[in-house]
């Protein structure tokens, strides 16, 4: 495994909204959790049947609360099992393993103002960032878009952190964030952070770039759930393993099931940590990640096994 794991107990399960549940976790050894930074996520190892199933979730509680960590999980309808297990099988008192926190969406502390934007369940990392900014006494505002009033989870916690600085956009009321006006005329030194659906993230990035925002001030997080696909064969040159990736496992999960240690951080196609070298591919590489550049994809020499696969044929990897 890539990062040290901790054993935790599910202390409390709360239904927050239709299809959204919150889980409070405590260490089974009674020790304190480490302090994490706003925007961090952990990877939950879920005991689904006989195979490893690891899903990343953002930590949303108070980063300085060392007794309890909280995550919120939306039930994915096309889920291959992780979020469904958490919604249907998980019970208070159950024990699971989690990874240490990793932050791929951290705040820039030199910023003079921070604009946080959340779409739907994307509120989870935004909430821990808001807490950190509130604690630092920083200048920030939150823009939160959700489907209908009942989906606006954590609004009370947010309101308490930044009274009057939380803006709501409720889709069922036809309210929508206009990124070109949200980002226009902002003072020098402003940072923008967004976590939400792909289309929303892309729209905000385009608006920012058109207004001359440099990349260093535009921060986004978007995790992709690995999608299933056709089974394909894999050969690993270094470990000498040969196996088939079934349709309901990601390439990374299949490698892990073989007992081969492969690196990862986000398991969502964003961080680049899991990159593997393709030695040969007798089929089409189906890239789903957000990490590789167009040239890297075209070269056919790299793959991000947490979300990407091969269509037909056999994939040989230098692992």
């Amino acid at each position, binding site marked *: 495994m890539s990062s040290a794991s901790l054993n935790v107990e599910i202390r409390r399960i709360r239904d927050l909204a239709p299809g959204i549940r919150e889980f409070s976790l405590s260490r089974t050894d009674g020790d304190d959790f480490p302090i994490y930074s706003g925007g961090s996520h952990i990877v939950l190892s879920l005991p689904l049947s006989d195979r490893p199933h690891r899903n990343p979730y953002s930590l949303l509680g108070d980063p300085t609360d060392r007794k309890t960590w909280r995550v919120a999980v939306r039930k994915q309808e096309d889920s291959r099992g992780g979020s469904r297990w958490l919604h249907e099988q998980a019970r208070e008192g159950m024990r699971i393993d989690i990874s240490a926190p990793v932050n791929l969406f951290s705040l*820039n502390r030199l910023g003079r103002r921070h604009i946080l934007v959340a779409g739907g369940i994307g509120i989870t990392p935004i909430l821990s960032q808001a807490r950190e900014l509130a604690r630092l006494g920083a200048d920030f505002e939150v823009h939160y878009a959700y489907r209908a009033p009942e989906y606006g989870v954590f609004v009370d916690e947010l309101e308490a952190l930044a009274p009057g600085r939380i803006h709501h956009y409720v889709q069922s009321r036809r309210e929508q964030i206009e990124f070109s006006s949200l980002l226009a005329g902002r*003072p*020098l030194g402003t940072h923008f952070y967004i976590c939400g659906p792909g289309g929303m993230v892309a729209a905000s990035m385009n608006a920012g*770039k058109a207004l*001359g*925002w*440099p990349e*260093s*001030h535009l921060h986004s997080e978007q995790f992709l759930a690995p999608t299933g696909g056709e089974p394909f064969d894999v050969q690993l040159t270094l470990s000498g393993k040969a196996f088939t990736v079934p349709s309901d496992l990601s390439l990374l999960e299949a490698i892990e099931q073989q007992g081969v240690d492969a690196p990862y951080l986000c398991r969502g196609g964003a961080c680049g940590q899991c990159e593997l070298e393709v030695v040969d591919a007798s089929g089409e590489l189906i890239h789903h990640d957000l990490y590789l550049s167009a040239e890297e994809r075209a070269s056919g020499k790299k793959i991000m096994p947490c979300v990407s696969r091969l269509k037909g044929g056999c994939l040989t990897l230098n692992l």
Partner: protein
Amino acid sequence: MSTLATKSQPIYAELEWDRTGTHHILFVSAEDAALAQRLLSNPPGGTLTLVHLRPADDSRSVWSQNLPDTALYLEAHTLAEALEVLRDAFYVAQMGTRIYLAGSEDAIWQVSQLAETFGVSRDEIRHAQLGTKARPVFCVHCRTITRGVHTNIVSCSGCGRSLFVRDHFSRRLGAYMGFQIDAEVPGEVPAAEVAYP
């Protein structure tokens, strides 16, 4: 001298407009006709503010001559005055602003530090060395910065130690590192040579 120290000497790329920006602030503190011509004959889109540090005389400057009509021209006669003008310019500046600093290393890195206090990141700011090569030197012993150093050995304006001027430049301090040269044998100081004209 270690290679590590040599490596930290800033390398200045040719100054170009960053046309992804929508507002531009240019600070210049030296004459360079070719650069002025190249930059000002093809200005970027959006607003342009030129902050010009120049002596208080009537001499014509290549910078004010070629300026586009729409540009805002602000003149300062001392670096302190220029820093005040720039502070105001940064205060009202919006995201989308790109900052260009062309002049002595002492001046451009002081402006750079000011910009950083406004939360400006490295991809929003460009530096070019023009005019004097004189170095600001940070005394590692008493932490005073001696400015306008042309020689490889200088007496620290803070503690009076004889400092050898290294090529190690700190962006944070905006200065080159100076180490006492006669630490082992006090009083044995080689003759200083002009190294930074």
